[in-house]
């Protein structure tokens, strides 16, 4: 008979609904909840049209990032800027500039085992996901935006109500 394997519970109980702000470290991976920032959902027909409205360089290729902006789709961008940054609203122009700073949180996964931790629930080829790329994808069944900052650091954007579950799931993985 083999020994029973203890599997950490992933289901979120009522007591888990407060997000831990305490960073955890295990197996060479640190999880940190990033401080609030100024985040925007941007829609426009072209990167140039958006750049003209917000007065910043806008990456044109899907997956590309530049100066805090990530191109998520052919007409969609995410801006992740220092707290307090305000973008022009583009009133009267065919663009959409929406403040989503309160919509989600960012969990930072950093360390030698970061890629392995992300890959535990993300179906992308995470090892080959280039540094400086960002994309919308899933972690298990939770939609996230994955942003690779370096070989050993990923930022995982997730909607607030999914965050406690995701935090526990990532933590369970790094313990495993």
């Amino acid at each position, binding site marked *: 008979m083999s020994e029973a394997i203890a599997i950490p519970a992933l289901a979120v109980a009522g007591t888990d609904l407060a997000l831990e702000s305490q960073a955890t470290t295990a197996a060479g991976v640190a999880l940190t909840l990033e401080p609030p920032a100024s985040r925007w959902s941007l829609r426009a027909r072209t990167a140039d049209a958006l750049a003209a409205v917000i007065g910043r360089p806008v990456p044109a290729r899907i997956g590309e990032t530049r100066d805090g902006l990530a191109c998520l789709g052919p007409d969609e961008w995410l801006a992740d800027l220092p707290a307090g940054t305000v973008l022009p609203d583009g009133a009267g122009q065919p663009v959409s500039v929406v403040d989503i700073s309160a919509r989600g949180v960012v969990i930072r996964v950093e360390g030698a085992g970061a890629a392995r931790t992300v890959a535990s629930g993300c*179906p992308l080829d995470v090892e080959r996901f280039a540094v400086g790329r960002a994309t919308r994808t899933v972690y298990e069944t939770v939609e996230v935006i994955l942003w690779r900052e370096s070989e050993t650091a990923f930022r995982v954007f997730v909607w607030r109500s999914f965050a406690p579950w995701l935090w526990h799931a990532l933590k369970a993985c790094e313990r495993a």
Partner: protein
Amino acid sequence: MLLIHCPYCEEDRPEVEFVYGGEAHIARPLDPAALSDEDWEHYLYIRRNPRGRHHERWRHTHGCGRFFNAVRDTVSDRFEQTYKAGEPRR
């Protein structure tokens, strides 16, 4: 895991990021009020349901968010090709 080529992201992505959107190239009638009940039924519900090559819509929901079209073999489940929405039937 099945990989689907998104013509907007221009790369193969995992199937779980996508949502199936039914048969492709079904044009909405320009004047719905002029349709007979039978025509309307045909537009809404009647599909080709072929054995083999099937033109169908997919959406890269958990990715770039775009609808696109695909040709998939309904027997082997193999994706023959995908192309952007609005492009002619292949």
